[in-house]
Every structure is written in structure tokens, then in C-alpha cells.
């Protein structure tokens, strides 16, 4: 059917606690795993993997019961960080389809009324939602209906994609079991005693009589079962930043295993960013130390990127520069989502250095040469000649590329700077330099030009007299007399 204005889709994630945990720890998928609300034997099972479900382990049992049925098994407690990351991932999936989103634990509701131009059919839209959820490692079900509550009930009970045309709600809801309703234990018991099994059975009861039996929730449950509940979406604000975290079973100190684990976090982060059509900007890695303390490593990204390899390379170089101080018990990666920079490549242009590769190159060179030794050369803000500093290289956009008429460039004598300036001994005859000795050079001064007095800054600081000097053998040098230190220095050679 075609899309109409007031349509709501519900993406439901069955076994939410289990999926939220397996998303962060995919290696546990094939193991005998129980997700519980605690580590005590009396803690309740929130989810179990297939090998345990096959032997009868169910949600609501205690861990002790699960052990008696499943034997040796792994018990994991779902942390708030895992839960939040999975919820944010679900939000990201929905936000790639619609701005109107209500997100909760295990489900997301989104308004899809105006998407007829994008998706010719609601079934296709539902399948696209499932595919997007798969990309962030969440396996779900989708239902699309005219009311949010109806869509939620149907998504919870039916597999794959369910599309309900307006007016057909009762037809689809009637055969559903009562367990899809948000019933308390007492209400479920009471309805079972009445002999009710399906929503159709409940709808058959007179609505006005239900409050006497089920309290004030009775009418609401009846409206839900009849598909008449019409609560509007309660929009959820978008997550402030993308965050993925991992708690380690055993503290780890070595960099390589930590990078292996960070790869998984980065993969998930990128999948979420991709779902939102956004990219990763500068990001922070937090290493949670054993037993306490946090080490934060900031990683700069030249331009927003979705390339996991680039991010991992930057991460590796940053962590090699700032290795973990002690054993690490947890990892967290957080980034501000940014819009990817569009880059227009020319059909006939040669190979270009893309910003991501430039950033990786800079990081590698920095790791090789040290901090402050790689970048764009810049003259220091001083009147003294030859002072240099390194600033961040940001080449102008390639859009400025053109054939560029080269101006008439003339070859000049370049100065080979000597850093730091070498101490020199100069003999003078009156105002004339007669002999120079410095840095392995020694000889009579054949000719000299100068002095050129230069002051480094306002005031008398850095007052220097510069001379050009020629020694035998064609050696041309620049020396200066530092009036503050009352000493001679060899500053540069004319190349």
C-alpha cells in the first residue's frame, strides 16, 4: 500500500538485554551466556543465548535455575554503558529515516507518513529499517500502522515486517496473545483465571465493566487491545555524542590486545555514524585504569571520516605516543558526529592526497620525528631573521586547483640555518672583521658586509649586529654580535 500522512513504524528488538550485550561482545554469541540483573544466584535472567534456550532456560528464571538447566555457563550483567550505547544506536537507525522519533529500551517509534517519495511501498520501508538495524548489529522486527501503540504491539508479536492498513487494526490484533500487553503479574494472573488468551478475548469484554476488575488500567488495556489507543509520539532528543564502551573481564596492559578491542568499538561507532549519514570528527579514547583512574587520549582528525582503517591508524599512533600507564579494565570511545566534507575530484587530475591520508601521514611522521617537528614552516613573529616554527599543515582546498601561471621565480642564495647558532670567535681591527673561528671553520675574513643592526622586539631585547662574511674557499657566512650577551655567533651559511 502507498504511504499516507499519519503512519508510524515501530522497530522492535527482541531479547533486548541479550542483543545489547552481544552487540558489544559479539564473541559471546555462540557461548552458553546468560544476561542477568546481577551476579547472585537469585538474580533474574534477562536473556540467554540459543544453546541455553534449547535446554529450557527462559527469561524470568533465576541464575541458579539457569545453571541447573544449562550446566556450566557464563553470566554477564548488562552495564548501563552497554544499554545506553545500544539505545543510541537504535536512535541512530531511526534518525536516518525520520526526525520524529520516540526511543526506548528495545524499541523505537518513528513517524513515516511523508516518505512516499522515498519508498514506494511500506513493506520496502520496513525492510530498509531492518537492514539499517542489522548494520549496527541489532536484529529486529518492524510493524507499520496508523497508531503508535498498535505498531508496537504488532512489532512485538509478529516476525519480519507487518503493514496494517488503516481500519484493519482489530483484524491484526485480535489473534495476538495477551502477553504482548504491558500487564503486571497480578493482571496477567487475573486474565488467565478469566480464561482469556488473546487480545480478541479481551476486546470482547464490555469496556465499562473492566475497571471494576482490573483497576484504572483496565480501560487503557482494552483500548490497546482494540487498537484504539492514540497516544502521540513523545520525541526523544538525539544523543549528544556517539559513545561506545567496553568493560574487560581481565585487566590488560599491552597495547596490541587493547587495539584489537578498540577496533570493535570503532567498527560499531562508524556503523552508527554511517546510519546517520555522518562521519567521525575528533574523538577521545578513555582508558579506565585498574583499580581506578581514567587516562584520556585525544585524537585529532583532519577532516570527518568514516574510514575505520584511518581512525585505527591514528588511534594506534596516539596510543603509542601515550601508552597505558597501568593495566586497563575498560575502554570507551566517544566522538562528536560531524558532517562529512564533500570532495570533488577531477577526472583528469593526478592522484591527490586526501585529508584522511594526510592526517595519517602527519601522525606517522610525528611518531618518527617527534612532536613539533612536522607541519607547515612558518616564520616566528620577530624581526630577527631565521627564526622558524612549525604550525599545523592545512593545504588549501583542491577546489582552488587551476593551471596556475607560475610567476617569474628567480633563484637566490638560500640560507642554510644553523640551529642553534654556533658560538664564534671574531677578531676585529677597528670596525673591520679580520678573523673568524667557529664550528670547525677558521680563517681570515676576506670580505665582510655590515653591520645590519636588528632588534628582535620592542625595547632593547635581542639587539644584534649582523655581518655577511667571506672566508677563503668560497665559504659565505652570516654572523652576528649579540649585544645583550656580548658574544659572537655563527648564524647561517649562504648556500
Amino acid at each position, binding site marked *: 500500500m502507498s504511504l499516507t500522512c499519519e503512519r508510524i513504524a515501530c522497530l522492535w528488538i527482541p531479547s533486548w538485554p541479550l542483543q545489547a550485550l552481544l552487540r558489544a561482545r559479539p564473541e559471546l554469541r555462540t557461548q552458553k551466556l546468560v544476561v542477568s540483573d546481577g551476579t547472585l544466584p537469585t538474580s533474574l535472567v534477562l536473556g540467554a543465548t540459543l544453546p541455553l534456550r534449547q535446554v529450557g532456560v527462559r527469561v524470568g528464571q533465576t541464575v541458579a535455575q539457569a545453571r541447573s538447566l544449562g550446566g556450566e555457563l557464563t553470566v554477564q550483567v548488562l552495564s548501563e554503558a552497554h544499554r545506553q550505547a545500544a539505545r543510541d544506536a537504535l536512535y541512530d537507525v531511526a534518525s536516518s529515516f525520520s526526525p520524529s522519533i520516540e526511543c526506548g529500551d528495545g524499541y523505537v517509534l518513528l513517524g513515516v507518513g511523508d516518505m512516499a517519495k522515498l519508498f514506494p511501498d511500506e513493506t520496502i520501508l520496513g525492510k530498509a529499517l531492518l537492514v539499517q538495524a542489522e548494520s549496527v548489529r541489532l536484529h529486529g522486527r518492524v510493524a507499520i500502522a496508523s497508531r503508535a501503540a498498535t505498531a508496537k504491539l504488532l512489532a512485538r508479536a509478529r516476525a519480519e515486517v507487518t503493514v496494517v492498513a488503516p481500519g484493519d487494526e482489530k483484524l491484526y490484533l485480535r489473534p495476538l496473545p495477551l502477553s504482548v500487553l504491558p500487564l503486571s503479574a497480578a493482571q496477567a494472573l487475573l486474565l488467565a483465571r478469566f480464561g482469556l488468551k488473546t487480545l480478541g478475548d479481551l476486546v470482547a469484554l464490555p469496556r465499562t465493566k473492566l475497571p471494576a476488575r482490573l483497576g484504572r488500567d483496565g480501560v487503557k488495556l482494552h483500548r490497546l487491545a482494540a487498537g484504539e489507543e492514540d497516544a502521540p509520539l513523545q520525541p526523544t532528543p538525539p544523543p549528544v555524542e556517539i559513545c561506545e564502551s567496553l568493560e574487560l573481564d581481565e585487566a590488560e596492559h599491552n597495547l596490541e590486545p587493547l587495539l584489537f578491542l578498540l577496533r570493535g568499538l570503532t567498527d560499531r561507532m562508524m556503523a552508527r555514524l554511517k546510519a546517520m549519514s555522518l562521519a567521525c570528527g575528533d574523538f577521545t579514547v578513555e582508558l579506565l585504569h585498574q583499580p581506578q583512574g581514567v587516562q584520556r587520549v585525544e585524537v585529532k582528525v583532519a577532516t570527518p571520516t568514516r574510514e575505520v582503517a584511518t581512525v585505527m591508524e591514528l588511534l594506534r599512533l596516539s596510543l603509542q605516543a601515550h601508552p597505558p600507564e597501568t593495566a586497563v579494565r575498560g575502554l570507551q570511545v566517544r566522538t562528536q558526529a560531524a558532517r562529512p566534507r564533500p570532495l570533488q575530484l577531477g577526472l583528469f587530475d593526478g592522484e591527490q592526497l586526501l585529508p584522511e591520508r594526510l592526517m595519517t601521514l602527519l601522525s606517522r611522521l610525528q611518531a618518527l620525528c617527534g612532536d613539533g617537528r612536522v607541519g607547515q614552516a612558518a616564520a616566528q613573529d620577530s624581526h630577527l631573521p631565521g627564526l622558524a616554527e612549525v604550525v599545523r599543515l592545512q593545504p588549501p582546498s583542491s577546489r582552488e586547483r587551476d593551471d596556475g601561471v607560475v610567476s617569474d621565480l*628567480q633563484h*637566490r*642564495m638560500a640560507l642554510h640555518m644553523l640551529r642553534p647558532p654556533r658560538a664564534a670567535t671574531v677578531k676585529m681591527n677597528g670596525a673591520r672583521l679580520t678573523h673568524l673561528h667557529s664550528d670547525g671553520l677558521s680563517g681570515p675574513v676576506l670580505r665582510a658586509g655590515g653591520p645590519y643592526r636588528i632588534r628582535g622586539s620592542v625595547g632593547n631585547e635581542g639587539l644584534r649586529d649582523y655581518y655577511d662574511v667571506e672566508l677563503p674557499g668560497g665559504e659565505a657566512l652570516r654572523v652576528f654580535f649579540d649585544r645583550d650577551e656580548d658574544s659572537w655567533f655563527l648564524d647561517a651559511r649562504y648556500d
Partner: protein
Amino acid sequence: MFSQLARLDLPPPSNLTGLPADADGAGSRQAAISQLRQACRSELRVRTEPPIPTGCAVIDAALQGGLPRGQIVEAVGKVGRLSLALGALAQVTQRRELAVLIDGADALDPAGAAAQGVDLRRMLWTRVKNGSDALRAADLVLGAGGISLVVLYLVAAPDPHQVTRAALWSRLTLRAQRAKAAVLVCADRPLAQSFAVATLAVHDEGMRWQDAPGGRLQLRERVARIEVMRSRLGAPGDVQPWCLSK
């Protein structure tokens, strides 16, 4: 080979070499060889990217148009190496291409480079600590691609003997070919040896001074001489004068 000969209007091959075998044909043999060389050179030029001019007509003529992309050129001697490097860097950056200066001596004067025409925004300055780091940095830069010119300035660099290993230069040559980048090595003595497509030596011929107000002297220019020590691009042994103004 035969099609090449046919295109050059040479006589059909009379023996295995395809060249006249009689003693009187020495002149025609030389002519044929030079014709073949020219043809091969023009074929090579068609296939490869245009060279990068250095801004110095003398050097560009010696290198058949400039620094060849995908090849290593060495500039050795006692003077003029940084001037030559900055000239090439200016040409590249003025064409809005990226260049890298791997500086083994921390010798760059940014203000001087900018005055010579180098667009510093398009030049990555890498200050390495020794010669082997310089080659490693060059390897990284060429591996990244997208760079038109890499200048290895190893004049007065510490431990220059670390960079004479043939394996390192062999790897660098392959990298340069893949990246289609020109590599200019500036050093006191030849380092790349036969891995360089050409080696230029710059010899000092003296300084010129001029009178300045106040009875003082002012350094005006350096006169140098460029010698093509060896080259696979043009005729080696060519010597040309070169003037560098202050």
C-alpha cells in the same frame, strides 16, 4: 622493434642487431643509434608525466625539462643545493601541488623560502634527526601518494653513512615510481649512486660583492658552475654557469 625501425625509415635488418655491419657504415650506425635514442626518449616522454621544472634554465636543460617524476635526482657539492631545492619547491607549490621537504639539518629559513616563491601552505616541512629517519620519512611520504616533489636535504645531516645502503634506495625508487613523484636528494656527496637518474654537482666559482653606502661592502651574488656528473636523461659531462643573487 621492427615496427620502430619501420617508423624511423631505417633499412630492414640485415643481421641480428638490425644495424649495418660493414666498417664503412660506422657513421650511419651512430646516426641510427642516436635516432633510436631520440625515438625511445620521445616514447618515454609520451608515457610519463611531464617533468617538474626547477626554475633554473641550465638545470632544466640538463634534465630534459626538469626533475622527472618517478625518478631520483641528486644534487651534490658544496654550494647551491638548498637554492636548487627551494627553486623546485617554489615551482611545485606555485602550481598548487603538494611538496615535502625532509630536512636533515633543520636548515630551512621559512622567510627566505617564502621570498623565493615557495608557498609554505603547500609544503610539508619534516625535520628528521638523522639520515636513516630521513629515508624512512621519505618512504612514508611516497607511500601516502599525492605528493609531487620530495626533497631530501641531507647536507650536514648527522650520520650520513646510514643512508648509503642500496636496499633503501631501491625501495625508495620503487615508491617514487608508484607515487609518480620527483625525488631530489641534496647532499655533500652522491648517496643514491646508480639509483639516481641524474647526478648534478654544483661547484663554487666565487662571490661577488658591491659597494654600499657608507663605504661598506654588500654581498651581491654567488657564481657557481653546474656539472652533470652522470645522467640517463641527457649527455653527461655538460658544464654550465649558474648565478645566484642574494
